[in-house]
């Protein structure tokens, strides 16, 4: 709501305009045609007053009914042609506008798919959405309403002047004598209205910001008994908005009558001066009538100019914001996507065969899944290290649990492995090749990622399992779902695999969503599994299913698991303990317990203490009232 509403103040920027025109280039044929049509339309529009003159001078005054009829028929024909031309160029221009907007929208969306995740950390989603939607629509105004209409107006003006010169140059001079007045009035008005328009916008933004703030903070307002004072503040802000509008009302109230007055002045002059000519130099009455009509047509486009200027100004501000976004450098890891996007553009956006398996430039051998963190340092903001000098290796097929307190860097570590972010120092190698040499798409194809919060897309259960991926058969999808116990509950849904996922899966339970995300990962047969265990508590039955599914998911795969469950650390080969961004302990469960270090304390706190009041969300579900108690764990340790 804040700076988006403020105009940059420049009305016209040459650089921006040129870039915008670039988007028009693919449609230059249509544009040229529209231009021709607009010119013809303007030309045809000139015929009216001339035909009126013909009718009066040669039809009516000579009592020639035949001629009058011919002129009327001709007039009718001209009107029909004008109608056809107007329809065609209107339609053509608006269509081109829509196509340009779609191109622009697609290129923004495409660009967003390639921006690094750090960009998303910095920019609120709402602002990005405005670029794709509202800003693009503002530009549409410029393309479909502004540019061509301006062109048409200009051409009509020239045509009218030519027609008037042909009728009577002397009278034209009389008409033109009021032109300076029109220009002065219009310019003054434009200047005032522009300022007042900007004032209104900024006051409206303030009004809306105040309203929005008070709506979101209403309970604070009420608890602090601020209603009366905030109402008074609101009334002030509202009044300042009203006053700015009243100012604009005033300008309009002065401008429109004034403009009409100037027009009337021109007509009076023509009647007076032209009338004398009719009597003495013999110009015809028809000429006079036609002249008055031309004069009236002449003034209309001039008074429209200020409105067009507003459209232009808003469009320029939108264009600036859009191009700023498009100029943000893309993620180096997005090379694969770029290729796809280019091809999508080349095929005019028709669905392109998915690109997931594109081999990297080298010949990729079979994916082994050996992972090596080699002295990795990372900071989101470049200053506060979240990971410091992290080094450890996961052998192909090995299962490793990451353990650490909240904020120790576990999730960051997996994000780096997914190449969502690039480490500042150090190297991560997969199968001995640094991540930077991997094609991000190729790498991610082999990785199954299960996030803590399961993100479901709108669509069906099946489309959420497929994830738009390679052509998985229905049988394969179902097999994956069966393997991780998701099949049963999916079958129970009304439409089974075709059931709609509503509101990001609000109708599904937390446990069901987890099973879905397991099935989703498994369906793509990943070689490497990265799993951030969900912490939300589920009922005992589902918990059992999840634990079993998890084991099946890890089976035979290199696995890196951020573990929150005792049963999970129970089944991994090694445990890596992160503490304040550093690897502090590595070893098996028994080894680490024997160390009596961080792990043993974490273990007591998170896995034995159970009833954490501080982080109830992070507590293992089996610690709930009816689950097994600490004693069972002791039994397990003994065995």
């Amino acid at each position, binding site marked *: 709501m804040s700076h988006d509403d403020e105009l940059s103040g420049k009305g016209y920027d040459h650089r921006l305009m040129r870039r915008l025109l670039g988007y028009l280039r693919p449609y230059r044929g249509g544009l040229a045609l529209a231009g021709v049509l607009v010119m013809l339309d303007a030309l045809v529009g000139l015929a009216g007053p001339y035909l009126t003159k013909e009718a009066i001078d040669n039809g009516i005054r000579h009592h020639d009914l035949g001629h009058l009829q011919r002129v009327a028929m001709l007039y009718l024909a001209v009107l029909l042609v004008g109608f056809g031309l107007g329809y065609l160029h209107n339609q053509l221009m608006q269509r081109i506008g829509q196509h340009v907007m779609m191109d622009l929208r697609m290129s923004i969306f495409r660009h967003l798919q390639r921006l690094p995740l750090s960009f998303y950390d910095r920019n609120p989603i709402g602002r990005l959405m405005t670029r794709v939607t509202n800003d693009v629509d503002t530009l549409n105004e410029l393309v479909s309403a502004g540019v061509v209409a301006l062109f048409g107006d200009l051409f009509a003006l020239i045509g009218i002047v030519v027609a008037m010169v042909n009728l009577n140059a002397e009278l034209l001079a009389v008409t033109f004598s009021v032109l300076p007045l029109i220009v002065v009035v219009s310019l003054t008005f434009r200047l005032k209205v522009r300022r007042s328009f900007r004032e209104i916008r900024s006051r409206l933004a303030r009004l809306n910001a105040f309203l929005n703030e008070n709506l979101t903070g*209403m309970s604070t307002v009420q608890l602090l*008994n601020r209603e009366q004072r905030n109402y008074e503040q609101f009334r002030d802000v509202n009044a300042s908005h009203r006053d700015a509008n009243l100012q604009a009302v005033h300008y309009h109230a002065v401008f*429109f009558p004034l403009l009409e007055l100037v027009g009337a002045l021109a007509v009076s002059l023509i009647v007076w001066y032209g009338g004398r000519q009719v009597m003495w130099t013999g110009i015809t009455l028809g000429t*006079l009538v036609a002249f008055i009509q031309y004069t009236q047509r002449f003034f209309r486009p001039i008074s429209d100019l200020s409105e067009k200027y507003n459209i232009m100004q808003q469009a320029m501000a939108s264009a600036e914001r859009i191009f700023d976004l498009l100029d943000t450098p893309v993620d180096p890891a997005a090379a694969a996507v770029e290729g796809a996007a280019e091809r999508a553009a080349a095929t005019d956006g028709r669905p*392109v065969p998915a690109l*997931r398996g594109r081999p990297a430039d080298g010949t990729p051998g079979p994916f082994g899944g050996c992972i090596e963190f080699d002295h990795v340092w990372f900071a989101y903001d470049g200053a506060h290290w979240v990971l410091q000098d992290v080094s450890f290796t996961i052998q192909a097929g090995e299962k490793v649990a990451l353990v650490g307190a909240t904020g120790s860097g576990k999730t960051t570590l997996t994000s780096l492995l997914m190449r969502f972010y690039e480490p500042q120092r150090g190297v991560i190698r997969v199968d001995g090749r640094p991540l930077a040499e991997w094609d*991000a798409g190729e790498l991610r194809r082999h990785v199954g990622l299960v996030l803590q919060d399961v993100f479901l897309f709108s669509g069906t259960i099946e489309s959420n399992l497929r994830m738009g991926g390679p052509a998985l058969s229905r049988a394969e999808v179902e097999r994956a779902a069966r393997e991780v116990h998701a099949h049963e509950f999916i079958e129970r849904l009304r439409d089974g695999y075709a059931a709609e996922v509503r509101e990001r899966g609000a109708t599904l339970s937390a446990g069901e969503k987890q099973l879905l995300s397991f099935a989703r990962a498994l369906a793509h047969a990943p070689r490497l599994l990265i799993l951030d265990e969900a912490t939300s508590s589920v009922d005992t039955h589902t918990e059992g299913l999840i634990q079993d599914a998890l084991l099946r998911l890890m089976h035979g795969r290199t696995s890196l698991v951020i573990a929150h469950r005792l049963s999970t650390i129970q089944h991994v080969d090694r445990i890596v303990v992160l503490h304040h961004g550093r690897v502090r302990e590595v070893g098996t469960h028994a080894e680490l317990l024997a160390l009596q270090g961080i792990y043993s304390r974490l273990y007591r706190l998170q896995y034995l203490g159970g*009833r954490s009041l501080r982080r*109830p969300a992070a507590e293992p579900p089996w610690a709930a009232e009816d689950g097994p108690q600490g004693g069972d764990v002791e039994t397990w340790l003994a065995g």
Partner: protein
Amino acid sequence: MRELIARLLPYLGRYRRGLAWGLACVALTDIIALTQPQVLRFAVDDLYRGVTAEKLGRYALMLLGIALSAGLFKYWMREAVIGISRLLEFDLRNDLFAHLQTLPLQYFQRGRTGEIMSRCTNDLAAVRMMLGPGLMYLVNTVVVALVSLVFMLSISPRLTFYSLLPMPVVSFTVWYFGDRIHRRFEDIQAHFATMSARVQENLAGVRVVRAFAREDHELDDFHGLSSEYLDKNVQLIRVSAVFHPVLGLLSGVAAVLALYLGGREVVAGRITLGQFVAFTVYLAMLNWPMVALGWVISLFQRGAASYRRLTEILDVEPEIRDLPGAFRPEHCRGELEFRDLGFTYPGAASPALSGVSLRVPAGRVVALVGRTGCGKSTLLSLLSRTFDPPPGTVLLDGVDVRRYALGWLRAQIATVPQESFLFSATVAENIAYGVAHADAEGIERAARVAGLDTEVRGFPRGYDTPVGERGITLSGGQKQRATIARAVLRASPVLLLDDCLSSVDTHTEESILRRLREELIGRTTLLVSHRVSTVRDADLIVVLDRGSIVERGTHDELLRHGGRYAELYREQQLEEELEAS
């Protein structure tokens, strides 16, 4: 429609004189402007017959005079009618805001803010368009149509009849296309919303999109939606591209008819050339009202629909308000009591609190602990009637909180909520937000108690530094401390602290608590916290679980008891050890 008018009348009534004057100006400016063709008529006839230069000059001056006086009334018309529409908008918006302020928190939950915002902007604008330009052009249309009809009939009834034949078609066309354009436009808006939701989903799920290399699929999907949007727009264009040209065509046809038929009448000698010219001008003048009529109708339709949506807000009865006979005692001691309190949130399946009984003598500090969702915050919100408790269950100074005047009750309570809310104002204004008058000294003292003073002095403009988008962004801990300072300054007998130091480190917390304790002597305090270090010095510690009190006692008693509190204590000791390693 009748109900709509009845509800709008009180608003319109305030400006009835101005409005009457404005609408009279509409009629006057139209009537005056409609005499212009008459002047043209005489001028042309005189020219035809031969005329003196003097007479011509007089006609020219008359034309100018008509334009001048019509313009003057037009100016007054706009100032009055459009101006009043802005005043009405102002009044309506104020009333909406005032009404919204009386609605309870529950109304604003479920992400309704966007909807209310749209009511206060878009719908209000539609209502204003109805009451301003709508009303103005309605009168304008009627007057111009009637008066020019009279003039035209006076020239030639026959000619009038024939040349007006296309006119109803014009109005019909405007209405027909206007309606279709509006409907297709709404269709486009709906699709636009779908598209926005899709973009939002893509941006929110960016990690999953990348992880599953789903970018291509997302592009295809968005491309599909964009294409559909394009198609829907093309549908609209098919209709809207006809609209203006067809209007031009119809008014042109009328002009041709007048030209042809009028010409015949002149030739037949039934009307003069001057009358003929005047007639064509009247016909041209009629064009606009016919176009405007369709537009005015749609303005009224939209305005009425929007006003209905506004009344939906205005008709919401505030659920939490003063009961009849609500009273405001002179003095408040600050004794709190919960008496077998059970509470279920509206629409929730299970109760948030059940069987809670607790008495807090004035001036005591009681701490509430328990896991998230156990009902601690609910307990606090019932005291200040953010939600209404069942009758007779929550008492202040021995009286049901529901029986006090809402404003008085809330003035006795200072709440520091879990989520601090700061307004776009200066730091000082935010601290003084809950009091009517505050001097700089008091504000600084409150900030010192909250441990914020030193940091504020480091801000570019000290206490006058604006907070929020146009100023500095405070950290979570700074916001919490500003909110604490706000409560300190409020100096009310009851203080509710809802886990308000969670974003501050333990060390800072302890020093703030120490100062708070000195400050709060004599104030009844309910303190919610997760940290043992925060609550250990409380007069009474109450452990809540699933909406019921499960343990109560002092720190030492509860440790000896060896229950949940003791467990929590051990756990936090371990955590501290872990932090240190």
